[in-house]
C-alpha cells in the first residue's frame, strides 16, 4: 500500500467512527430522561452538586466509580447508610471533620449545604447505573 492510500483509509475510518460516536451520543441523550430522572433535579440537588464541587469531594471519593480511590464510593451512599446516616456524618464533618484513620477534613457546611448534598445523593442513588456497584459497599 502506498502512503496516500494509507492516509485515505485513516481519514475515512476516523470520519466514520466519529459519525457513529455522534449517533450513539444522540441515543445516549435520548435515554437520559428515563435513566437519570432530570425532573427530580430540584434546586437542592443543583446546590448539592455545587457544594460537591466546592470541596472537590471527587479528589478523595469515587462517584459511580470515578474519582480518587482514597475514600468510599458515594454514588450509592444512601443505600449504604440511609438518609439519616449521611446527614449525621455531614453534620459532624461541619463541626470537626469525620473518620478514624483516614480523616475527612472539617468543611464549612451550612444547613443548606447539607440539605443540598443529601438531596444530591438521593438523586444519584436513583440513577440507573446498570446494576453497578456489585454490592452496597461500592
Amino acid at each position, binding site marked *: 500500500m502506498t*502512503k496516500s492510500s*494509507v*492516509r485515505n*483509509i*485513516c481519514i475515512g475510518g*476516523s470520519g466514520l*467512527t*466519529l459519525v*457513529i*460516536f455522534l449517533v*450513539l*451520543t444522540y*441515543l*445516549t*441523550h435520548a*435515554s*437520559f430522561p428515563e*435513566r*437519570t430522572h432530570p425532573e427530580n*433535579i430540584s434546586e437542592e*440537588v*443543583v446546590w448539592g*452538586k455545587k457544594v*460537591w*464541587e466546592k*470541596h*472537590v*469531594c*471527587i*479528589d*478523595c471519593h*469515587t462517584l*459511580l*466509580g*470515578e*474519582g*480518587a*480511590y*482514597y*475514600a*468510599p*464510593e458515594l454514588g450509592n451512599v444512601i443505600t449504604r447508610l440511609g438518609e439519616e446516616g449521611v446527614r449525621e456524618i455531614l453534620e459532624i464533618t461541619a463541626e470537626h*471533620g469525620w473518620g478514624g*484513620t*483516614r*480523616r475527612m*477534613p*472539617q468543611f464549612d457546611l451550612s444547613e443548606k449545604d447539607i440539605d443540598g448534598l443529601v438531596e*444530591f445523593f438521593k438523586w*444519584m442513588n436513583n*440513577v440507573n*447505573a*446498570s446494576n*453497578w*456497584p*456489585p*454490592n*452496597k*459497599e*461500592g
Partner: protein
Amino acid sequence: MKYQYESQQVAYPFFVAAMLLFAGQIVFGLIIGAQYMWPDFLFPAIPFHIARMIHINLLVVWLIFGFMGSTYYLIPEEVEGELYSVKLAITQFWLFLAGGVTAVVGYLFRWHDGREFLEQPFIIKVAIVIVVLMFIYNISMTMLKGKKRTSTSIVLLIGFIGMALLYLFAFFKPDNMIVDKYYWWLVVHLWVEGVWELIMAAILSFLLIKLTGAEREVAEKWLYIIVGLTFITGIIGTGHHYYWIGAPEFWQTWGAWFSVFEVLPFAAMIAFSFDMLSKKTRSHQNKAAILWTVGTTIMSFVGAGVWGFLHTMPQINYYTHGTQITASHGHMAFFGAYVMIVIAMISYAVPNLRNQESLNQKAEVIAFWTMVISMLFMGLSLTGAGIVQVYLQRILGMPFMEAQEHIALFYGLRFFFGITFTLGLGIYLYDFFSSAKSRTKG
C-alpha cells in the same frame, strides 16, 4: 548533531520548566503515597485531595511544556525555516508558567474548581486556552512560511488543535451530573487515547528519522497507520468509560469491541521503531536517546495497551472499576507513553541545543533503568492492591475502609518504589542541570 535553526533555542526554557515541574509532581506524589500509609501526615494543612490535584495537574502541565518544547525544536527542521515568532513563543512560555504556578499555589489556598483533573479555576482555564491558541498560531504560521510541510508536522499540529478544541468541554458544567460525566470524558479520554497519541507518534517519528537515518517515506507511512488505528479504535473506545455511569447498556458492546483494539496503535509504535532501526543508515552516538525512544514504545504498550486491555471488557470492569487497578494502569500508561516520549526528546534535543555530544551517557542509562523498573514495580504493587481490593470489597462485600487495612502491605511497596523512582529522577535531573555548565552557544 548541532541544531540547525537559531529559533530552535526557544525550546530550551520549555524543557527546563518541564523538568522542574516534574520534580514538583513527584514531591506531591510522595506526599499522597505517604498519606495512604500515615493519614495524619501533613493533615490538615495539606489534605489528600489538595496534594492529589497538585500531583496530577503538575503532571499534565509539565507534559504540555514538554510537548511544546519538542514542537518548537522539531518544527523548524521539519519545515526548513525559522520559527514565525520567537517573541510570541517566549511570551507564551511565561504566560503558561505563570498560569501553572498560580494554579498550583492557589490549590494550597483552596482556590480551585470541583471536577477531577479539571480543578483549574475558570480564569486559569481561559488563560490555558489563550496560551495554546498563541502556540498553535505560531506553529501554523511557521508551517505556512516554511519550505516544506511534512506529515510529521501536520499530525503534530492536528494533535494540538484537537487538544485545544476538546478542552472546551471543560467549560461545560451541566446541572445533571450524568451529562457532566459523559462530556468530562471527551476531555480526559480523547486527550490521552486520542490527540495526545498523535503528538506522541509525531515526536516519535521525528526522533526515529533523526536517530536511524532511515527513509522519511517509511516513517510517514507508519505515522498514518498509527494515527488511523488511534482514532478508529479510540473514538468509540470512549465507551469503555460509559458502562456504569448512567449511560445506556449498548455502550457495553460498542465500548468493548472498539476499546479492546486500542492496544493496536501502541503495538504499531513498537513495530515502527524496530522497522526503522532495522533500516538504519547511520549509527547515532546518542545511545541514551535511542534507549528512551525505543523504551517509550515498549512501556506505553505495556502500561496503556496491555494494562488498559486487562480491564476494558465490561465483564471485568464491573469488578475493577474505580479501584487501585485503575490507579495502576493510570501510572504505567502516563509514564510509558507521555513521560518517556518527552524525556526521549529532551535526551536528544537538549545536548544539541547546548552543542554537546549527548548528556552523560552512563548517568542517563542508570536513570533510565531505575525509573523504568521502579514504575513497573510501582504498577505491579498497585495491581496487587487492586486484586485484593476487588476480592474483599467487590466480591466478599467487605466495607471499603476495612478492606483498605488489608492492603497496607501493597501501599508500603508502592511507597518504596516511589522512593527508588525519585532516586532515578534525581540522577536524571542532576545530569540535566549539571551538564548545562559546559553549554556552548553559537
